[in-house]
């Protein structure tokens, strides 16, 4: 009982950054156990071509199910694939990423196997018969250490908690057929992406985020321009802003939206309500620009500038542009 199974998330037939993080996490566990990493991947026909990149990150075996019906994530199919693989062999752990897709799949697989799940895990280690993991609870105000005594131990690892690392293994493909299911009860008919050219909030090293201090939807151009100057930035927003409809709901960073921890977080016209801080306080470096020097955002900002966003932000955009050109 030394092998580790991992579910490789894809979107549009391509792996996401979190996929390599999950495979790396599984590799770490398998190395500790002296076992192999088996990857399950589902996607459109030809998805087995991804096996090479999974192998680079430590997959010994890639169980691939390619079918035209799997262009979108299909929960019933993915659940059946992972659960049947988990039953066909003995695994000490099953690793998912705690992304939207992984958080959708992992508890389904857990219940199908009549076992439990440790979700949104930020660290993990084996201690005798137990898997000991940490998990931020109460919107990150408390760090919980959890003990999981089930085998297989199902883990959903928080995006960014493990850095993807290369460790070449065979990545041998084992093709499997589409599982036979009673007619699909839930069907994804369409994936609507906001703007596929933009970096995703969970993957961008820099996030520029705007709050009510921008006063109107059209002033988000300032935030967009600053993000463009960085070149590797995504754009986020506060709940006040998404409630106003200035930005799509999916851009909301906070307790009830996305939890992010980029290298650099630039808060533009954000006062720093508790619910917003809960979503970004683990960022490595926080810059805040706000006209009110008493704003709570300045209590967490490594570098705060008190001032009018309509003056400071364009100046910063210009300065970042020239710094990037000089680099």
């Amino acid at each position: 009982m030394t092998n580790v199974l991992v579910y490789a998330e894809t979107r549009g037939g391509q792996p996401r950054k979190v996929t390599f993080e999950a495979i790396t996490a599984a590799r770490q566990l398998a190395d500790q156990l002296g076992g192999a990493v088996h990857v399950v991947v589902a996607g459109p026909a030809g998805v087995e071509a991804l096996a090479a990149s999974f192998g680079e990150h430590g997959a010994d075996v890639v169980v691939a199910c390619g079918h035209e019906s799997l262009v979108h994530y299909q929960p019933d199919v993915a659940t059946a694939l992972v659960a049947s693989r988990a039953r066909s062999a003995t695994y000490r752990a099953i690793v998912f990423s705690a992304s939207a897709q992984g958080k959708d799949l992992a508890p389904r697989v857990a219940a199908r196997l009549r076992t439990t799940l440790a979700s949104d895990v930020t660290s993990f280690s084996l201690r005798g018969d137990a898997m000991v993991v940490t998990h931020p609870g109460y919107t990150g105000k408390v760090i919980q250490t959890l003990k999981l005594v089930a085998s297989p131990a199902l883990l959903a690892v928080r995006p960014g908690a493990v850095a993807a690392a290369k460790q070449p293994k065979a990545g041998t493909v084992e093709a499997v057929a589409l599982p036979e299911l009673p007619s699909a009860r839930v069907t994804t008919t369409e994936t609507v992406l906001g703007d596929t050219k933009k970096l995703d909030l969970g993957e961008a090293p820099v996030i520029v985020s705007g709050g009510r201090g921008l006063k109107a939807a059209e002033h988000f151009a300032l935030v967009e321009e600053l993000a463009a100057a960085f070149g590797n930035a995504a754009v986020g927003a506060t709940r006040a802003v998404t409630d106003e409809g200035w930005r799509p709901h999916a851009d909301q960073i906070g307790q009830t939206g996305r939890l992010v921890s980029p290298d650099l977080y630039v808060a533009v016209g954000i006062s720093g309500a508790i619910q917003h801080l809960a979503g970004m306080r683990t960022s490595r470096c926080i810059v805040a620009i706000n006209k009110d020097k008493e704003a709570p955002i300045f209590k967490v900002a490594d570098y705060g500038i008190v001032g009018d966003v309509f003056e400071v932000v364009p100046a910063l955009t210009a300065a970042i542009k020239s710094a990037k050109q000089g680099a």
Partner: protein
Amino acid sequence: MKIAVCIKRVPEMDGTFRIAASGAAVDEAGLKFDMSDFDGYAVEAALQMTEKLGAGEVHVVSLGPDIVQETLRKALSMGCARATQLKCDVVPYDPFAIASALAAELQGGAYDLVLFGKMSIDSANGAVGFMVAELLGLPMVHGCSKLDVAGGQGTARREIEGGGEMMTFSLPAVVSIDEGIARPRYPSLKGIMAAKKKPLDVKPAQLGPVALTVERMELPAARPPGRIIGEGAAVVPELVRLLQTEAKVL
């Protein structure tokens, strides 16, 4: 249309959190408790569906000690018809243990829909709803910001990173609710009075096996105190210098 909504009593997150003497729980003294945010959206969505159809009723279920009756009464005062407490002294952390108890209660209830909030705001695992669906053998759609039901079929939009997925599903089903669907109503005085007379059943929780427990809780390392480096656009060159040389993020 018969709808069950599973709700959880949680502390409000803007309080100051301290660790209890056991080292494995939050000290509840000084914290205020209420229905978990997303569960409020789920109750509201359920009430609006039955109101729109002009038929059916909404039942609420919560698992825990007697204090959860407060949260159940709030849901009754919003307009739910009946409440059930699945009684246990301590709410276990293990989502499968909880899901087993909820599934045992919901099984045979002939519900067209079972709703959950997208996740509880305290543990934020978002696992129980999926597990209940699996145990009941029902389809599950997670994180819906739009939900329509007609003729035994449901359509929903669920939120994913950077966009949304459009889904169709058959009833009965389990659906978890994201914000953006409907703002929860405040209980009216009339609703509060009526809630006192509505049925609230208490049954022992038939918990599943517990394999996941909290061993320890700690407060995270505090961030260094914030620093204001200056005022106005004139400070921008200094900020860029600090980002390059001190924070090394440029």
